[in-house]
């Protein structure tokens, strides 16, 4: 619909668009920085002034996924010629790939990445699932002390994680949950649940009661009505909540740093631990960070239609 606009409104509109463009550039700059560094030759990563145009290479990613050691003397030319292309890149940097027999030894990055994925996905599914049921209960039934209970649920989110991290760590060690996937999943579910309940309650409240009542009259039980009517109607809300819970769990640093160190360590505490001493290898770190960004970006991209509200709403008269 094209409404009539005055010239000052048009000018304001253009200024607003310009402001949004500038803001977008500012927000995208760090992402560009990480992405470009991940594909830079090692020596260009720290060049001053920064290099903008360069020949991109995947060597940082090869270094990211392999275990390497510094070579004391130059590589034997015959060995170099026989090596596959990716191993040559490592030799080019004065290093060699560690092998047990013929098998290339992988770095810890894939394991840590997998840990992040396991913990984030499972904790998101649990937090959103439990949150959806809880929110439905709060939305549809009269519960004694409803407001107090909801506030209590919210209050679990009020302390910063570092405050509870130490006592949590001691308790976890006592019951053997430290450095375990389950331990981290429990923590993240507990942390995300309050958020999930509150967000889902908002969405549930917007689903008209009549939908279920119609189903109840039409011969369905409340449970059937919930799964056949409420869940599909709440898809938008579930998707939005899932994205937020996933991002929180995926990016979580403080608990992961304290609670895990090997088996269950996730990527956020692992990546900075690789900076190590001496001259840090920024390109490899950037490659690790860049890959780490992708799941969240993909997940959000896949659910983008659900994140835009109002797709399924509007077929009911109020």
């Amino acid at each position, binding site marked *: 619909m094209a409404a009539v606009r005055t010239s000052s409104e048009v000018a304001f509109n253009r200024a607003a668009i310009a402001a949004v463009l500038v803001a977008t550039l500012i927000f995208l700059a760090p992402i560009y920085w990480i992405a470009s560094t991940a594909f830079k030759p090692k020596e260009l990563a720290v060049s001053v002034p920064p290099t903008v145009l360069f020949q991109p290479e995947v060597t940082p990613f090869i270094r990211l996924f392999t275990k390497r050691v510094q070579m004391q003397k130059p590589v034997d030319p015959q060995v170099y010629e026989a090596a596959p292309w990716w191993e040559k890149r490592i030799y080019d940097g004065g290093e060699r790939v560690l092998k047990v027999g013929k098998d290339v030894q992988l770095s810890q990055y894939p394991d840590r990445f997998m840990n992040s994925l396991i913990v984030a996905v499972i904790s998101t599914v649990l937090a959103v699932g439990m949150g959806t049921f809880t929110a439905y209960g709060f939305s549809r039934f009269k519960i004694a002390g409803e407001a107090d209970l909801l506030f209590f649920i919210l209050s679990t989110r009020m302390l910063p994680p570092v405050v509870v991290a130490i006592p949590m760590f001691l308790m976890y060690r006592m019951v053997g949950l430290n450095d375990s996937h389950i331990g981290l999943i429990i923590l993240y579910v507990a942390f995300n649940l309050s958020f999930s309940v509150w967000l889902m309650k908002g969405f549930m409240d917007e689903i*008209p009661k*009549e*939908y279920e*009542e*119609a*189903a*109840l*009259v*039409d*011969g*369905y*039980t409340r449970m*059937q009505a919930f799964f056949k*009517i409420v869940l*599909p*109607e709440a*898809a938008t809300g579930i998707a939005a909540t899932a994205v937020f819970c996933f991002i929180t769990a995926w990016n979580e640093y403080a608990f992961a740093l304290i609670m895990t160190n090997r088996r269950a360590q996730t990527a956020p505490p692992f990546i900075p631990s690789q900076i190590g001493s001496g001259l840090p290898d920024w390109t490899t770190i950037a490659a690790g960070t860049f890959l780490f960004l992708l799941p969240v970006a993909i997940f959000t991209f896949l659910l983008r239609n659900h994140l835009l509200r109002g797709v*399924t*709403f*509007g*077929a*009911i*008269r*109020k």
Partner: protein
Amino acid sequence: MTQIELRGIEKFFGAVQVIHNLNLAIADNEFIVLLGQSGCGKTTTLRAVAGLETIDKGDILIDGKPVQHLKAADRDIAMVFQSFSLYPHMTVFENVAFPLRATRMSSGEVDKSVREVARVLRITDLLDKRPSALSGGDMQRVAIGRALVRRPKAMLMDEPIGALDAKLREEMRAEIKRLHVKQGSTTIYVTHDQIEAMSLADRIVIMHEGFIQQVGTPDEVYSHPANLFVAQFVGSPVMNIAEARVADRAGAASVTVGEAPAGFEFPHRLLSKLNGHSNGGLTLGIRPEGVLVRHDAASGYMPVEASIIEPLGSFDIVDLKVGSTMLRARTKAGYVSGPGEKVHVRIDPEQAHFFDTASGKSLGVRL
């Protein structure tokens, strides 16, 4: 064959009693309309029959069997909501088929039933669409289809056309009537619109503040309102109500309203029929069509002044100043030319109603 009987229903919301000792017997195939303002308990009553609301006292019987402890799903009743409540994530076909999917009906039979109902409701073309693509009237047809498809024992409708605009409402009203005549099922219909009630109902149940005020055919509640509430709620334009005094004047009864200097002439037998109510605590009710207006003086007509004229197309409503009160009369369009015009007015005794002012109850006096 479905009879519904409500016996001594009481319902509280917290400390507030919303239904008081409600008794109602609904015959097979009867179209009952619960009529009243919002908050009168009509929707709560309907939801109690559906099983969406519990009752605190009394019995709900369907075909003689108490059902108040049965879940909604087990009562075999269908309901149409004001909001239509069509599921946006399903097509029209799936929406209509939804109640059948709860049964063990084969998909072939489901398909057949849905198409049959769609044919009756003329929504066959819409079966593949989503509810959001439908007009308000079509949404309501689909909602009715979903209710009919199961061939339920009874149909409950909660202001089913209240959300539509005026023209569509009229169309759908005719359509609901046509369907009821054709399909014939025991129906309880809730509305606050008295025109809807009059045009659809076999019997109207008028409710106010949780009490049934009157149960009767549209003609009965219009011609013989049981009390002042019904008298003023049913009929448009609204019935004139005025405190009245009755005197015996030379072989005729004289009814004075609003401290007017003279009274309206009524037959003498009014006095005996009123039986002592003639002075004090008497209220006269007269519909605008019972207030007769003419230009020239005539026997029994009182000279008055017209104040406001509302032209309504086929007729006008004219406010006439009688003493300290106003009587609204229905005249031919343009009969009274403007405010301030002097006309002559009479009350048609045959259309007059008399009520006890204190209780509001009709005295049952008709001439």
